[in-house]
């Protein structure tokens, strides 16, 4: 469940585990393991340790993230940022000293950001005619 929040803060010395969601702005200075979804501005502090898939509207990263990061609008990587994973964002600003290891996909509009993360839809299954029996086997699927 997503929660509307003006400002959520996870301070140093605190660990979060699981699927964390917030519709507002989020600041993380502690640790987070799992997944992170932020509907507002996400700020990752210099001492933060994130092992998660990250989705945010906007983000400013100064700490360490291990996981794929998807940002709908602007992603800013500060000099102390350390990213290990793929990045998808509309625009980025990267300070000298920021480190990342992974693929980057930047630009393409909002649709480009969504498309970069799209999972191809399965082919529609035919509707059986009256009296017809459809057997779903791996061979039939292929």
């Amino acid at each position, binding site marked *: *469940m997503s*929660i*509307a*929040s*003006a*400002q*959520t*803060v*996870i*301070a*140093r*010395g*605190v*660990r*979060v*585990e*699981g*699927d*964390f*969601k*917030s519709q*507002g702005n989020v600041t993380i*200075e*502690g640790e987070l393991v*799992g997944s992170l979804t932020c509907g507002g501005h996400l700020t990752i502090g210099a001492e933060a340790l994130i092992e998660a898939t990250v989705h945010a509207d906007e983000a400013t990263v100064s700490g360490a993230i291990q996981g794929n990061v998807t940002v709908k609008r602007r992603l800013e990587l500060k000099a102390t940022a350390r990213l290990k994973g793929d990045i998808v964002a509309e625009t980025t600003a990267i300070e000298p000293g920021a480190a990342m290891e992974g693929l980057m996909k930047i630009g393409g509009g909002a649709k480009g950001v969504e498309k970069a993360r799209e999972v191809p839809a399965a082919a529609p299954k035919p509707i059986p005619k009256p009296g017809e029996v459809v057997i779903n086997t791996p061979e039939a699927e292929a």
Partner: protein
Amino acid sequence: MSPTFAYVYDAVLSQGGAAKDVLRIETEVGRLGIQGPIFREGFHDVQGSLSQAIKEGSKNIVFVGSDIWFLQWVPWFAKQTGISIGFLPVEHSPLSRALGMPLGGAAVGILAARVLKVMDLGTVNGRPFLTEAIAPQTSARLEFEGSYAVRAKTPGPLAIQNFAIQPKTGEVISVPTDGQLEAVLQTPIERSALFGMWKKTEIEETRIAFTRGVVSDAGNPVQLLVDGLPVTGKEVVFDVLPGVLPVIVGPDRLFG
């Protein structure tokens, strides 16, 4: 007499020192035409009398007394429908300031104006509360919305807030009309420099908004003060009841 107002007096008002304050209040109530039946704790079966007064048409129940006493009535408020609650404080307190209610006779005009704010209530293991639940020192695990858990590495104070007021500044730090509760966890973090010769402990504050949370401590009892009263449990479940309590407020209240 206005049949729509009824008054409940804290037992302390029966003591000699409060007589002048009570007289001022009752004079002002009469002047503004909002008299109603008065029920005194210690002299009446107050809950039974209030139920009867509500059946007979009372729409506004005004509690005259201290904020600690007023908060003890919250579980009763939560069960009522179709009535609004007023609080007429007899001493300055963070709660009376946040509601915009001055002392004594000056508050009667605000009651008569009957400006309402519909507030949220929190519940702790099903028991309603208005302000906050506090554990002074805990290493409890907090689970939110059934999807993520939070734990501090070192013990510290925990507060689950619905309507919280900063005592020193009077600032409302948790708004009672936002449809959610806030968990505030303070964690001491030690900083050192000069090869450990200089040390300083800083308090870091974690703040999370939620609608359902569970507090547990590896099977140990979790002890909390909720609206000033103790609550203990191995697992303590918090929920929010959004927009359930209409309260009469003053124009100088500290929230929207």
